[in-house]
């Protein structure tokens, strides 16, 4: 077995040093009745070639995003990741190291986390960011629980524009903490209804911009209303590239900014692993979940970095911790930081503009498809449209002709009664010709007289 260095002679010699008759003597504490006599019923070990063959076979049964026109978004976006990003994250010293609990020999990881925190704080316009969460959705749930601790209130208002998976994740985690979740009606301009739902018991308001329908909103007025009522404003973003073009959550008055950082540095990976961004106002730092990296000096006065403020965390505070999170998304955060460092402000702004221009082109093209109604009026790179048919059926029909045309809204929110709504995203990776192909095929799918899909 290629991963196991001990030889039979080694094993015999080591048992001798230990003074054990055989290997089973070392398992003598396990109940005899439960000890397996031999291997369980699964295939025996295989070489690289065989393993690669099986997995390549499974991979071949998936239609990749790059294999044809592709318009899926709804919380996960296909961007171009420079080759050097993947090279850096495969460096042994980053890939095969542990959480940097021994700072003297983990300055590489720690300095990266410090850079990551600085970049996230800058992008979100917030004072302090942590060293990452699992993803945007769990970050959202943690933000609501944090807001409840800070305000000592137990009601959370979720905008109807919040990604339904985020809302569901938040409800699942927050309800056991006794937090009452009020999710408002899903609609394109959902943020407009939020202010009316704030009351004196409200711990926080959660809004998303661009929201799940792609709609961009200036949430400054919501921030004012929330603060006037003593509540916190949590601003969620699922497309981090939008920070390059739009006003930041901090500029609009957010108390906590949460985002899915996958768009920068990380591939689609069928939904994970991703990287959650989590940033707050300075006064809330000690209520934050997750790891924080801070600057300090070593015994010779040289600058260095350590994990800090850990009295918030489970390994010190146990059942009084601000969260149970331990392992986070270190390597995905590294990918984010390397990609961000390559882009810089110049590159990110340019990238964001290109994404937006693509979406403007998509909108114009879709408006030319008979029966299609574009619902999103202010957008970054994603649009919601109403089709004259069930969106799921349209997506399946188009997939059969090699076009992944987007995400039916009903897939993520089946109860909303919006079976005819389709979400479509474009990025710098979408060729203009693919937009034309999509619209031609959609025209064919929607018009009963032609019936055919191009």
């Amino acid at each position, binding site marked *: *077995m290629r991963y196991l260095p001990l030889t039979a002679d080694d094993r015999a010699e080591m048992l001798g040093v230990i003074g054990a008759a055989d290997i089973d003597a070392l398992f003598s504490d396990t109940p005899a009745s439960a000890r397996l006599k031999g291997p369980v019923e699964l295939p025996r070990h295989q070489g690289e070639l065989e393993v690669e063959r099986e997995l390549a076979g499974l991979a071949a049964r998936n239609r990749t995003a790059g294999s044809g026109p592709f318009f899926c978004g709804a919380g996960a976006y296909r961007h171009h990741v420079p080759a050097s990003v993947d090279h850096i994250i495969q460096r042994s010293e980053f890939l095969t190291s542990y959480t940097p609990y021994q700072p003297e020999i983990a300055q590489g990881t720690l300095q990266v986390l410090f850079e990551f925190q600085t970049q996230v704080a800058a992008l979100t316009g917030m004072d302090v960011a942590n060293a990452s969460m699992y993803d945007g959705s769990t970050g959202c749930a943690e933000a609501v629980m944090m807001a409840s601790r800070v305000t000592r209130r137990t009601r959370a208002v979720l905008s109807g524009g919040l990604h339904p998976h985020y809302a569901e994740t938040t409800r699942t985690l927050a309800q056991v903490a006794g937090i009452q979740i009020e999710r408002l009606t899903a609609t394109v301009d959902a943020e407009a209804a939020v202010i009316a739902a704030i009351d004196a018991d409200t711990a926080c308001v959660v809004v998303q911009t661009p929201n799940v329908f792609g709609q961009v909103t200036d949430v400054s007025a919501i921030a004012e209303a929330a603060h006037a009522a003593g509540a916190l404003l949590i601003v969620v973003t699922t497309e981090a590239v939008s920070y390059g073009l739009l006003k930041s959550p901090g500029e609009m008055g957010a108390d906590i900014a949460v985002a899915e950082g996958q768009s920068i540095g990380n591939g689609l990976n069928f939904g994970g692993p991703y990287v959650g961004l989590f940033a707050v106002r300075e006064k809330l730092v000690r209520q934050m979940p997750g790891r924080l990296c801070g600057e300090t000096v070593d015994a010779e006065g040289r600058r260095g970095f350590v994990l800090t403020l850990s009295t918030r965390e489970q390994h010190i505070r146990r059942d009084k911790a601000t969260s149970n999170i331990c392992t986070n998304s270190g390597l995905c955060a590294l990918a984010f930081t390397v990609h961000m460092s390559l882009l810089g402000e110049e590159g990110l702004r340019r990238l964001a503009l290109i994404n937006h221009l693509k979406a403007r082109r998509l909108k114009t093209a879709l408006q030319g498809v008979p029966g299609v109604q574009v619902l999103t009026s202010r957008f970054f790179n994603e649009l919601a449209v109403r089709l004259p048919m069930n969106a799921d059926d349209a997506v399946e029909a188009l997939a059969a002709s090699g076009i992944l045309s987007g995400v039916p809204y009903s897939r993520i929110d089946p109860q909303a009664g919006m079976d005819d709504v389709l979400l479509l995203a474009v990025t710098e990776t979408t060729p203009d010709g693919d937009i034309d192909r999509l619209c031609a095929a959609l025209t064919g799918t929607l018009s009963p007289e032609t019936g055919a899909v191009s």
Partner: protein
Amino acid sequence: MSMQTVGRPTRPETTSQTAPEDRAVGLLQYEPLIFELGGWSKTGVDLPDAAPGAADDLGDLVRTTPIGLPGLSEPETLRHYVRLSQKNHAIDLALYPLGSCTMKHNPRLNEKLARLPGFGDIHPLQPQSSVQGAIALMDRLAHWLKTLTGMPAVALPPKAGAHGELCGLLAIRAAHEARGDARKRVLVPTSAHGTNPATAAFAGYVVEEIAQTTDGRVDLADLESKLGPDVAAIMVTNPNTCGLFERDVIEIARLTHAAGAYFYCDGANFNAIVGKVRPGDLGVDAMHINLHKTFSTPHGGGGPGAGPVVLSAALAPFAPQPWIVSEGGDYRLIEAREGPAAQAFGRLSAFHGQMGMFVRAYAYMLSHGSDGLRQVAEDAVLNANYVKARLQDLMSPAFPDGPCMHEALFDDAWLEGTGVTTLDFAKAMIDEGFHPMTMYFPLVVHGAMLIEPTETESKAELDRFCAALRRLATDALSAKDDTEALERFKAAPVSAPLRRLDETLAARKPRLKWTPPAAPLPLAAE
């Protein structure tokens, strides 16, 4: 397309820094922060120019202030991060004996396979008909996990061990509530990892500790006295955090079930028993499996992980969505509470879990096979007992009687009178070329030193490690009447990129991001 477009600087002159002196140590370069490299108008990504007015439809939604992000060309960026990488220790460099963390070899085949476009370049919400291979892989991984644990169901979504614990406890809560039986307490041994009590509290329970016997195991009498009609679950790690198998595990399960509670097993140490003992045969109701430990997905400097949870038949109906079902060779994800998943307790995150980790873990399982995985446990346990045997005459094992499982636990009794602490000893290991062992955990053992070599270390590397530790231990013992020897331990490490860091300063005056030198610097101002 324009190459390396130099735009308007987004920040005023901020290139002069209060950064430390630029001083290399041999070939180990000093490396400033990315913000100190002067890249305020550079980019390492060539993108087409955007037309003027590209965002004029967005009006005042557009950002008008600078973000404050530096960028660098590709060669500068690569050099920056490669230099940083060289300040890290890693498994690929030497043994990494962190107890309870299972720092084993990460096969590169698994990295290659996770990057196949058929896994890496598929969207979680594209039509299920277009991702049958991905769902099939999840189903096969589930089959292996169920077979290895002897449990009938598994929830794949949890993103890490602590997330898995939460998954298990929420399933337990849902199962009690389905019977109208609201329970308030969760029992956790004092030796438990911090995530156990934190998770129980997160899930809305009051945490109560179970005492430990002098031989490092759950005190059955104490457990029995604390079990009652309001106890929802016990959370027991097995093998436990002392590196010992809970001999009375079947009785623990019986007592727990008799009280109407569920047995949550923390599976962080499953590496010690995989292929040898199935938790399902021990009466476990729920157990998370850290794919980044037992099944070798890389730790990546602190994540990402994955923490699937195997569930007993009693808890299976409450598993979170999505569920995987297969109908006549077609695979389907049930993403809402409907059909067989009608009783699901909810959703733990967006999408379907850590697919990238699933691919790696499944490749690892196929490579080892049922025979290899059994050998994994045997070699992991053999290596730990070998280290214990080689060191026990100099250092004091916390539980000298009987074998340990996959990790050897020492206390600091042997250092008494030397002035050398566990911390000093661990830091001195760095100067010998090894990562320290886990220190001061578990909390129940004074000055704990927890050594987990894992099965992927050769005898030669173990001998090198033991020889280094024996030299160090001898030196530590000599510190009793040799102040110079003591000084060496207090000063360690001296050969790492940095000396010991001032963690008190970091916490007292938190400086959590870089700020331009124009702004007041909290540290400099002191």
